[in-house]
């Protein structure tokens, strides 16, 4: 394909590509994302490809290897159109039948259908799956028909139409900003800052050299929506950045991808190369006066580099230490030039706002939180995966209608939102709508969209300890309140989880958390106490139980629990005795075994090996 010199040539190319696919009767979309890849989708893809070739079906059947569909636990996942047939847990051995029975004869293979864990029934089509039904997959659905390594797929699907609109002079930079501003799009990375306002500030800042940056650092543990979007549809993100650059007057951009996402880095690089070849990046894009190019920068393994000034320092080749932001980065950013930094998902929303209009976007959501948001729903529920919902949907609906409720019949206790900067909300607050301001007031936040569901086997004090440990590891260490404050909070919580807690420590924890949140230099420090403060607010009784009764009801805090063999269930098979690495279990064959609590280190091996669930935690 050669360079496109005008938007008409782009439309012509689109027509050409579409007519080349006229003879395709069936499309098989197989997920090649990180999750399905780990479940073996590569073999499935290869065997299906071979079988299709062997049957001479290459010209009629299109095999599209897509990015992540967001339903990783069911992987490898496959959707066949027409018919919207959904197959899950597909293995290479199924390839022959899929080609011969389904593709060639239109028959459905029952065993590959998805079984709804709530009703127990098999579901035929993707659109009927309860997990997908309550969602509004504006961005995620775009992953389905597109091979992330193919710019042709993106163009056939309508891609780069929004770019066309903004470079053929129908849409001035002021028009773009007006559209984004009236859509009320707020940053999807955690800050929730009004995107339009950020762009105006950058546009009006002094300087002829400006930058746009895509923050794909996605450091929140438990969040992988940015990976999914960037891996699965990098051109969507690029198009958003091009529009943003046009709006603020930037000629250079960066996509900053965390080190731990090699596939996202690879796909982003391929996408940039392909866009350059077609002249969609570079000088005089589509024959206009707009020039813009993008480079990929890799993270070095630092959560703090998700913070804007630390990210920019990292691109500059320095350590990721944040600096004070009394002057916004929109004015003084990368290399001290005006810079717009937005999250992957924020950029991904831009093209459709330009194409469908701000009123369309603003028709979804609440008063102050418009549009849809992708959440990473994980934890102790039946359906985990990536979920896209209109903002304003209640937590209850996400956890129960989409998530399918608790796994193993346990009682759901809390939901943790917003990653390490967020907080835990109890079941009593599940009627709250997922809205930037509402969650913030409740002591948590939407953050980047991570939502971890916890049941009564999770100890909330342990959860606070987990996040503090994480943040202590990731703190850059420059400022006192974060470096020392988090350490002291962790010291107190460790005392509590190890049975040395004192009642006055709870008040100290609150005061210290409050101090850190007001005095820390950057967002990491300022939100570091959220997990502690929110669990203290809603689960104080658990803290008190650890302190007063030296007890951990959830059975997690090692110093406060004991492993015991249940005499009712133990049949003396001897497996636990053999696997115990601390020689803490004794017993004769066919007799109830006994754990020596002095030697037991509560490592969990015996529990995971016992087939009769005979080892309990008290």
């Amino acid at each position, binding site marked *: 394909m050669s360079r496109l010199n005008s938007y008409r040539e782009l439309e012509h190319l689109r027509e050409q590509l579409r007519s080349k696919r006229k003879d395709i009767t069936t499309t098989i979309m197989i997920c090649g994302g990180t999750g399905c890849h780990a479940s073996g989708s590569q073999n499935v893809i290869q065997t299906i490809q071979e079988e299709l070739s062997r049957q001479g079906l290459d010209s009629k059947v299109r095999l599209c290897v897509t990015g992540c569909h967001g339903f990783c636990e069911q992987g490898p996942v496959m959707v066949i159109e027409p018919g919207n047939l959904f197959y899950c847990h597909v293995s290479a051995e199924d390839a022959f039948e899929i080609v011969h029975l389904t593709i060639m004869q239109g028959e459905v293979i029952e065993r590959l259908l998805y079984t709804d864990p709530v009703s127990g029934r098999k579901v035929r089509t993707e659109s009927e799956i309860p997990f997908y039904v309550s969602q509004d997959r504006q961005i995620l659905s775009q992953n389905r028909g597109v091979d992330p390594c193919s710019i042709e797929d993106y163009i056939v699907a309508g891609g780069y139409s929004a770019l066309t609109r903004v470079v053929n002079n129908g849409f001035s930079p002021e028009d773009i900003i007006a559209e984004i501003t009236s859509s009320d799009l707020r940053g999807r990375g955690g800050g929730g800052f009004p995107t339009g306002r950020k762009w105006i500030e950058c546009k009006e800042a002094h300087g002829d050299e400006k930058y746009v940056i895509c923050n794909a650092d996605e450091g929140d543990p438990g969040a992988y929506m940015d990976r999914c979007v960037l891996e699965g549809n990098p051109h969507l993100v690029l198009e958003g950045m091009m529009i943003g650059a046009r709006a603020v007057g930037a000629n250079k951009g960066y996509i900053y991808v965390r080190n731990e996402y090699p596939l996202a880095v690879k796909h982003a690089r391929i996408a940039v190369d392909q866009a350059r070849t077609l002249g969609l990046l570079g000088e005089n894009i589509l024959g206009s006066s707009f020039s813009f190019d993008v480079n990929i920068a890799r993270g070095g393994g*630092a959560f703090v580099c998700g913070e804007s000034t630390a990210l920019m320092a990292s691109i500059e080749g320095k350590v990721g230490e944040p600096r004070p932001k*009394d002057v916004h980065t929109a004015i003084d950013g990368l290399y001290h030039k005006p810079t717009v930094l937005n999250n992957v998902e924020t950029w991904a929303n831009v093209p459709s706002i330009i194409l469908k209009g701000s009123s369309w976007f603003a028709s979804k959501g609440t008063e102050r939180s418009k549009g849809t948001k992708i959440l990473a729903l994980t934890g102790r529920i039946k359906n985990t995966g990536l979920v896209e919902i209109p903002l304003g949907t209640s937590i209850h609906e996400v956890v129960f209608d989409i998530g399918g409720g608790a796994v193993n019949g346990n009682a759901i206790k809390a939901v943790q939102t917003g990653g390490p900067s967020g907080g835990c909300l109890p079941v009593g607050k599940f009627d709250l709508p997922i809205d930037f301001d509402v969650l913030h007031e409740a002591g948590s936040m939407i953050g980047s969209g991570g939502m971890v569901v916890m049941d009564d086997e999770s100890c909330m004090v342990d959860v606070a300890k987990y996040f503090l440990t994480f943040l202590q590891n990731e703190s850059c260490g420059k400022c*006192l309140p974060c470096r020392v404050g988090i350490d002291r909070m962790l010291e107190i919580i460790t005392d509590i989880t190890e049975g040395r807690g004192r009642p006055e420590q709870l008040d100290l924890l609150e005061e210290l958390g409050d101090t850190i949140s007001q005095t820390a230099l950057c967002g990491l420090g300022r939100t570091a106490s959220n997990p502690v403060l929110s669990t203290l607010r809603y689960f104080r009784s658990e803290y008190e139980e650890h302190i007063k009764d030296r007890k951990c009801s959830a059975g997690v805090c090692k110093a406060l629990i004991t492993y015991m063999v249940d005499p009712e269930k133990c049949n003396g098979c001897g497996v636990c005795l053999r696997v115990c690495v601390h020689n803490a279990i004794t017993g004769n064959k066919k007799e109830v075994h006994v754990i020596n609590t002095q030697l037991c280190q509560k490592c969990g091996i015996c529990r995971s090996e016992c087939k009769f669930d005979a080892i309990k935690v008290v």
Partner: protein
Amino acid sequence: MLQYVNVNIDGAIIKATKGTTVLDTAIEYGICIPHLCHVPYLSDIGACRLCIVEHVVNGRSKITTSCTLNVEEGMVIRTNTERIRKLRRNLAELLVAQAPNSRAIQDIAVRCGVKEVRYPFRNEDCVLCGRCVRVCTEIWKARAIGFVGRGKDRHVDFPFGIRPDFCKQCGSCIQLCPMTIPPCNGPMKPGEERLCGQCESQMIVADQIPGSCVWCELGEGFACGRYA
């Protein structure tokens, strides 16, 4: 040609030089804002957070460090509100609990109103104020020391832990270090650490005129900007 802006600090309308920080302006005019990592002739990094003030914008207060905030026309700053005093006190408490074996740190704690220390004392050799690193980098340009590692592991070190030959042993790093000034009654042994409270900054006077300079010297040889 120097340009001036008018700023409101604690109710006083002050003619400040454009391009200077709120901290420098306040100290110049005798309004004391406690600080540790600030040194008049070095860059400001806002690491110790002691110099925090309330920056009032549109009726709302933002807490920010005065050493990194440049003066602007019409700015409204409050250095000694109840909220600031409490935050500063808590920060100083954290600081002295980390390093009680320094007179400078003990003085700061008293100056910031710390009356009790609710954390177990530790005996760190370094409070990571960065004065040494900055003087080596900015004044002597030797770049023989720097901050290495991250988070709890952050510490000052030579490259690869060995003093390089381009360190000319000028001693500036030692001169500026707050940890080289032992407490008045001598170094405290482990287990015997306490808040000494005997600073010549005379807390009683400071209590009566909040924010005013009490010529406290924050530890001998450790003079703040008023002595530069």
